[in-house]
């Protein structure tokens, strides 16, 4: 089984609930009403962007051959036991190489703490906060192998006119 974040752009309403859920999860209080009053406001790790006729969140894929991880010269970024790329915060020197190498643009900067900021796939939660927050289930946690199997099924159906 290989869990992955999956987005169906046709279902994304651009409401940014995933951004809010993410920021709250990365706040001190872990509550919306607490988070908005925190002195250092929490930062989101997922970004709803718009293209022509489409809205969708852009997020970290925890790539298997991860440019951010490969380019991190201090060993701040590491892959944990679940395969998620996380930070040893104290090792970040704010060189921003990871920001430059991420092909999705989802590693950002905390300018106050001089820290690279990225998705940790809510490693303490069963379901990531962004997925829980999505009201249309545009954002889902899927088993990649299962997803591929379903797609094969749909392909066969379409091809055979079923």
């Amino acid at each position, binding site marked *: 089984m290989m869990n992955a974040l999956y987005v169906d752009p046709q*279902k994304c*309403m*651009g409401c*940014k609930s995933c951004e809010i859920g993410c920021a709250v999860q990365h706040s001190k209080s872990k509550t919306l009403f607490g988070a908005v009053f925190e002195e250092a406001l929490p930062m989101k790790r997922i970004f709803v962007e718009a293209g022509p006729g489409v*809205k969708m969140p852009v997020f970290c894929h925890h790539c298997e051959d991860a440019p951010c991880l490969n380019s991190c010269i201090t060993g701040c970024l590491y892959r944990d036991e679940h395969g998620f790329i996380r930070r040893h915060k104290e090792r970040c020197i704010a060189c921003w190489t990871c920001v430059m190498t991420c092909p999705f643009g989802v590693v950002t900067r905390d300018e106050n703490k001089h820290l690279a900021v990225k998705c940790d796939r809510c490693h303490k939660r069963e379901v990531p906060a962004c997925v829980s927050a999505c*009201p249309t289930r545009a954002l889902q946690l899927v088993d990649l192998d299962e997803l591929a199997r379903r797609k094969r099924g749909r392909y066969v159906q379409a091809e055979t006119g079923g």
Partner: protein
Amino acid sequence: MEKTTDRATQSMIDEAEKRGIPLVWDRFAAQLPQCGFGELGLCCRHCMQGPCRIDPFGDGPQRGVCGADRDTFVARGLGRAVAAGTASHGGHARHMAHILLKSAKGQAPDYPIRDEAKLRQVATRIGVAVEGRGTAEIALEVAQLAMAEFSEKDTPLLWAATAVTKGRVETFIKYGVVPTGIDSPVAEMMHRTTYGVDADPVNLLLGTVKCALADFGACHLATDLADILFGTPQPVVTKANLGVLKKDAVNIALHGHNPLLSDVVVQVSEDLELVAAAKKAGAPAGLNVVGICCTGNEIMVRHGIPLATSSVSQETAIVTGVLDALVVDYQCIMPALASVAECYHTKLITTMPIAKIPGATHMEFTPDKARETAREIIRTAIEAFSRRDPDKIRIPQETNAAIVGFSAEAVVAALALVNPEDPLKPLIDNIVNGNIYGICLFAGCNTVKIAQDANYIEMVKRLAAKNVLILATGCASGAFARQGFMTQEATRSYAGDGLKAVLTAIGEAAGLAGPLPLVLHMGSCVDNTRAADVAVAVANKLGVDLDRLPVVASAPEPVTEKAVAIGTWAVAAGLPTHLGLAPPVLGSKTVTTVLTSTVKDLFGGYFMVEPDPGKAADLLLATLSSRRTGLGLSA
């Protein structure tokens, strides 16, 4: 995305970008993508068990916590939008009524009755005796009746019931949508849309129509009283676009909607002492008063004051670097003006107790000190002039001439020059013979979501070429004025042969040595009832109701809740009404179907949403064609 088709606006956008000053287009880009629930009208914040959202795709919740479904959500949202629009026009109208009352009692020396003929015309229409009575006496009774319109009466709203056809009144009674006040339908709409009241989408929509008809009455009242106090607009030649600002003058822009203070500022700006003070401060051209948005339209159609720019581009007036004071009243005033003004010497002056902006200077308008406040404002502008930074001066050269001021009275007066005994006859004859294929009223705003003016320009060219007579109000007027469509040249270039012949005949009779302008500027957005008055007169003359006339309306670039209210009463009045953007109703198939189709069976009018201006023009032409066929005229 292209931001504007107006070259003056574009040059100011470039200038602001160079200086790192964010404008409305930048703030819009920062908002993207916008929330789809909001776009569809599928969120509700009416109670504290919410906020609730309905999943348009069916996987998520289909009802709010209280059980309201998507149809209820959307109908309630639309009802509240119309209530807000009606409250805005109601506030504007109430302001006029208070001043007329004071004026009639001799308590407002700065506000004499300037148009006695209009006073008597309005009095007669609403049933006030005029024979052998003095102006003050009539004004007092009209003002008292006007004030009474705001509460809940036992009788229909006078300013609505007396201003439409008999057939419309019967239709409104039949469907239970006759308003008996201006404020009461607003309050009723807030009540029926609160937690646990009206859940029936059709009932809610009928309530929305009633509220919109209160808006019609409020608009009509505001226009009538403004004419009585400041004069009914007559054709006047002026100019539009940012090039009307002058490097060598103290420039004062008046922005917002209400003529109460702005008209007085215009009057006072002719004070020789103040002009001398401006010259002494180093401005050889003295004082230059210009307008923005609908306050701009008010003083444009009454006094020929040039229009600097329109609603969406309001910030650009400051970016010219020569705007010394920006005086605002209420509605459509972006709070962002304060932060743009911070980058320049421009003094932003708020004047209304209900409309203050952090960062602005507040100089409160009161009727008993109107002239005094106007003088103080002008002195403040002169003072600011001395702080201009010559390095920041960038005045775009674009201006267009504009013949404006076509009130219903002015239109009839122009027609009377062709046929003094029966002024409406030439108009009707030409509609019948097809020289005028139909009439289209362009109303509404400019929106950041559409390249400024693009829809207006494309649609007016197509419609005029097919001999459609074009009327305009509000920022639609602003668009046509800035873009040169209120000129005789525009008529020569774009009007079809039939329309050209009619506009030329009237123009020649009026001594213009040429045609009337292609687009007739009827006034500000509160003045849409002027167009309704013309349509009602034609309907009464022909003996058919409004829902059969070849008359359509279009708001191709709409923004405000006021526009939603106006659009809704236009539909109730029987007019097919085009919108260039979908209001937040598409989350409900039921509501969308009622608005675009079912409502036609009730009132004759209906909404059409078509973002593509070319297709929208074709749609309106097809609509006019079927209306003509219905009347037995050549299609």
